[in-house]
């Protein structure tokens, strides 16, 4: 394939930890194939080479937490034919969306020696709140094989296989014994989007929901079950307010226990 016909890929970073971008670099076996299939036009984490837009595909990591970023994402959208968000920050606001439940000034006063220099928005919002997103890839961080799948799908003009059912499906396909049933360990797998391959139950612990809510997640019933196994409202709030605290489903469930 001549270089000039390769699709141009850009990777963008907003408020995030870089973990999702690193997943791309972590695709050791596939990295050469990725580099062969696309022109990496903008990827500051990996290369200093920059190619001007427009881009065929933009991968966006991170959430919007400053007014500068709120403007920047508009520009990215304008320069990108397809825009895919990668990870919990870009998709749900990330762990930094915890500020949405508090007063951000309290945090800046607490954390920074000179808080007067900090300019930040009161809320951390997902990319989809600001611009049209063509596809969302879940996870904190994303699963590298899912990223390769999404890129392959994009390059071959097909639908990515990233099912929206729960972690339990992957857990069962692997043959793991349910940690909820066999050990009484609270597990968020039944309300959490698949994609990780049920890593946590495989290592004998409960899922803590890093892929965010699955399709038709019944958090009310799961919370009741957690209550029965001795989980307190305070712990429930913490469970729902982590990396995907900003997702509608988890936010509502967490809030419901605050009022009790």
């Amino acid at each position, binding site marked *: 394939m001549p270089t000039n016909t390769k699709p141009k890929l850009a990777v963008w970073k907003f408020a995030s930890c870089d973990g999702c971008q690193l997943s791309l670099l972590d695709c050791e076996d*596939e990295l050469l*194939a*990725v580099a*062969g*299939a696309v022109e990496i036009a903008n990827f500051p984490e990996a290369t200093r080479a920059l190619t001007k837009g427009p881009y065929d595909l933009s991968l966006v990591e991170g959430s919007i937490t400053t007014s500068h970023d709120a403007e920047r994402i508009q520009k990215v959208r304008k320069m990108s034919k397809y825009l895919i968000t990668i990870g919990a920050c870009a998709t749900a606001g990330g762990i930094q969306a915890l500020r949405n439940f508090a007063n951000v000034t309290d945090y800046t006063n607490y954390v920074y020696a000179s808080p007067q220099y900090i300019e930040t928005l009161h809320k951390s919002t997902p990319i989809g709140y600001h611009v049209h997103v063509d596809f969302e890839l879940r996870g904190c961080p994303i699963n590298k094989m899912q990223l*390769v*799948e999404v*890129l*392959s*799908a994009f*390059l*071959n003009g*097909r639908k990515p*296989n990233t*099912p*929206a*059912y*729960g972690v*339990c*499906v992957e857990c*069962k*396909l*692997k*043959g*793991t*014994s*349910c*940690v*909820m*049933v*066999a*050990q*009484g360990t609270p*597990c968020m*797998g*039944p*309300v959490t989007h698949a994609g990780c391959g049920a890593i946590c139950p495989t290592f*004998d612990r409960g899922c803590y929901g890093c892929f965010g809510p699955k*399709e*038709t*997640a*019944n958090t*009310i*019933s*799961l919370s*009741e*079950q957690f209550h029965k196994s001795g989980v307190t409202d305070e712990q429930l709030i913490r469970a729902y307010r982590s990396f995907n605290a900003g997702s509608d489903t988890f936010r509502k469930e967490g809030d419901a226990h605050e009022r009790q």
Partner: protein
Amino acid sequence: MLEPVVEIEQQVTFKQEQLQTLFTVLQKRDYQLVGPTIRDGAIAYDELNSTADLPVGWTDEQDAGRYRLASRKDAAYFGYVVGPHSWKKFLYPPVLSLWKANLQKGEVVVAPEAAEAPKYALIGVRSCELHAIAIQDKIFLQGEYTDPVYKARREKAFIVAVNCVTTGGTCFCVSMKTGPKATCGFDLALTEVIDGQRHYFVAESGSVLGAEVLAEITKQQATAEEQQDAKDLMEKAAKKMGRQLDTTGIYELLYRNVECARWENVAGRCLTCTNCTMVCPTCFCMTVVDTTDLTGQNAERTRHWDSCFTLDFSYIHGGSIRNSPKSRYRQWMTHKLAAWQDQFGTSGCVGCGRCITWCPVGIDITEEARAIRAGDKSDKATMAIKEH
């Protein structure tokens, strides 16, 4: 392979040490032994090398949404009931690559068929599980379209059944007429008896191959007393079923209660997590996933177990037809206990209790059926759908 009922041979007994001989005899015949072993806090089914891999001295305590390992006072090999796995994982693998292809000079070339089917000896198959295998035989081996993967594995499989002398908190095989004694569909059937100092197996063969294997083990003719002991144990077990399901007119009951308040009630609890269908030994639904690699030169088709609890399961052009959890739970239960009869002429439930134990919120199919029956107000005579 399930053969037409063979004259069940005279019962014999062998000492517990001979169980290892049985394993060795099967291994010499190139069988990969698979059966119960302790894994992540439960008695799972996995590859076995020797009797040391069996859950010796362990049992399980089960209730709705709850499973715990517990130690026994004796050294029983098969002193537990059924666990999170079923034999379908060996005969109908959860994830399977169907074919791979690549592009060569613009032509799609399909790679040669995968390796030969494994030759399994299933160790410790319970009566309800024999019935579940017979049900899956109907699904995969009868009619116009058969499943070659299932067929190859099934035909090769050697089945060592174990009669239940311990019953689980969620078992209801007596209601479903599927146990606790294995009556057919096995090569060998064992009853484990621990009587004071004596620890032995009462064995019978159910196929010619089973008889051949049994011939290689040191054994004696079972005495009348030994046979009676084994029988008593099973009878005692049958009286201790953890659950019951009244199957009288269940087909008509479910069909005439397509709309009833209980579905909303259960949907409030159901997580649509799919666990009940994944652990069920008869559920057979699968989906097919096509992928390409980054270069677009290689493609693969994989199939994996699917469940009527996912939205994609009922996706047809434009959307899912079972959007509500209510419609999904209703599909599962109605399929198991009613629609299955239209489809395969048998119930889809063998009463193993797995769906009850392994439901994270403890939804119990027997309790749901009872509630639907209690709320059933329809005129049974006029509404019966079966006589269409």
